[in-house]
């Protein structure tokens, strides 16, 4: 059976490795290379300019605005999403009180889970189109239409500089919560009910149950959730590109790195500069993930 082993291994690996190498590995390597050039796609010979792109980035206002927006997204989006998801998952799993000595979920918890999860299935681009209409500044919008019914003036969700980013963040949260409810529910489901029973017998309240039992036992899942949401906070391209006033506006109030990379590539053909931004984005994402895993590391409770 040794016979034909290597031809088989090579035969199975050659196509996937070739596709992956051409479109992924080569692309990432070139991104590093391009970030040190001022290439604009016309001349055949590429000029290396050292760290010039990065120095330029450092003095680029739009870039810093984008970084600020990522920072805001990075703090509030995971916080609110995880908070809501934990709350709902807890209600779904132990909200029904104890029956025959064991805690149960509320009635209809399966239905809630199914409904909550659905937005996760919709493309972000599609969600963006829906909410661009929901937020519409005139009476054709869902929210302003309702406000109009009550005689309230229109709120300019996406055209108001102070409101635009928060409105977009709300959509990200709207879409994400269901996913984490399901994720946390699965985690809570694997916590043995005896633990809850024992704690309840000792007179633990629901609050104590949540903070002293559920939370520590879910720590690993929470960590994963935080990393996932953080990575999503470095994206937000689809929403900003579709929803925001003149792409990243008003006046740059919603722009994100993804959008700036895209704009520099498509509109200005600044391939080198766009790649430099990509490299910065990569290091930001990596630093965030490493930091999160390091800071939140603690003894996992083994069951």
């Amino acid at each position, binding site marked *: 059976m040794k016979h034909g082993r290597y031809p*088989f*291994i090579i035969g199975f*690996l050659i*196509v*996937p490795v070739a*596709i992956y190498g051409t479109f*992924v*590995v*080569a*692309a990432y390597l*070139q*991104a590093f290379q391009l970030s040190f050039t001022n290439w604009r796609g016309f001349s055949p010979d590429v000029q290396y300019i050292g760290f010039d792109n990065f120095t330029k980035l450092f003095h680029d206002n739009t870039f810093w605005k984008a970084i600020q927006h990522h920072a805001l997204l990075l703090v509030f989006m995971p916080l609110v999403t995880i908070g809501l998801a934990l709350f*709902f998952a807890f209600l*779904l*799993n132990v*909200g*029904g009180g104890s029956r*025959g*000595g*064991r805690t149960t979920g509320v009635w209809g918890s399966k239905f809630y889970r*199914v*409904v*909550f999860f*659905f937005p*996760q*299935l*919709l*493309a*972000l*681009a*599609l969600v963006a*189109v*829906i909410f*661009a209409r929901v937020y519409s500044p005139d009476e*054709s919008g*869902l929210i302003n239409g309702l406000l109009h*019914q009550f005689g309230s003036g229109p709120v300019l969700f996406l055209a108001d500089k102070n409101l635009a980013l928060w409105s977009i963040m709300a959509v990200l949260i709207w879409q994400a919560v269901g*996913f984490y409810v*399901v*994720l946390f*529910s*699965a*985690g809570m*489901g*694997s916590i043995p*009910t005896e633990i809850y*029973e024992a704690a*309840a*017998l000792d007179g633990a309240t629901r609050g104590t149950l949540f903070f002293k039992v559920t939370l520590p036992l879910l720590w690993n899942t929470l960590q994963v959730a935080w990393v996932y949401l953080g990575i999503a906070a470095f994206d937000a*391209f*689809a929403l900003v590109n*579709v929803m925001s006033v003149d792409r990243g506006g008003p006046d740059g109030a919603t722009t994100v790195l*993804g959008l700036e990379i*895209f704009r520099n*590539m498509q509109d200005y053909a600044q391939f080198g500069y*766009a*790649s430099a931004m990509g*490299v910065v*984005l990569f290091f930001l994402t*990596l630093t965030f993930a490493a930091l999160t895993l390091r800071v939140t590391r603690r003894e996992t409770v083994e069951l």
Partner: protein
Amino acid sequence: MTNLRTDVSVPPPGTVGYPGRRHAASATGEKKEIKLFSGFAHVALAIWGLLVIAPLIWVILASFKSNTEIFTHAPFSLPSKLSFETYKTAWTEAHIGRYFMNSVFVVALSTAGTMIFGSMAAYVLARYKFIGNRAIYYLFVSGLAFPVFMAIVPLFLILQNLGLLNTYTGLILVYIAYSLPFTVFFMTAFFKTLPNHVAEAAIVDGASHTRLFFQVMLPMAKSGLVSITIFNVVGQWNQYLLPVAIMQGQGADQKWVLTQGIANISVSAGYQANWAALFAALTLSILPMIIVYAFFQRQIQSGLTAGATK
């Protein structure tokens, strides 16, 4: 795979019929507290459920209204008459039908390709020892750490050089390439868990390596394959950045996928927009998702959360 249910069927011995003294004493008060809490839980859950459903219902209602009705009537008012005129416009003038079919075509081929090539690579990496095995594995898995935005400029140039810009071939190959890291990562772990004795028995029976893979190992890996297929279908169907970067140039709008097409209607619509037609287009792209979800919600939920629970 994690079990999504919360019930543990039989309480372990020792817990039944052993109510603590405190427990029994405050039984009535506790019942009241439970009822109150459960009521509160329902209110909170129902509010979020409403927040999730309301925009979708609003979209569907508005798709039957006329443009003036959308502006002058209350958001959740019923349309004055049931007319499918807007759907006709969305289908023919906004080309939703074409974009939809383009998406089906691209995702069918790219998911099939991802699953075939991904599980081939994963299988070899999981079950054969050879020089460079680890190196190739980590090469694939490291792809998970990089943001796609970083690759988007070089990717554009690579496709341009290969003459694959604005072609389905290019888009499909790129979808496959960017789905491989997770597919290989997940399936390698899965193939490692499969028992050895079945493979050994097949080899004793004289099966070749290739036959062993297709006729023995793949069928055994079915549950993993189903999860990752769902994961890839949903991910590729919802992809927006890659098609926007790749499907551009002359005649590109004929080849757009659904996400791109709908986003474009919305962005380019401006002030004299036919919002009703946009709502019809949205409804047409949401409804299939609702139908598919209604049938396969368990599989979809576990497929999409597979990445986070592994």
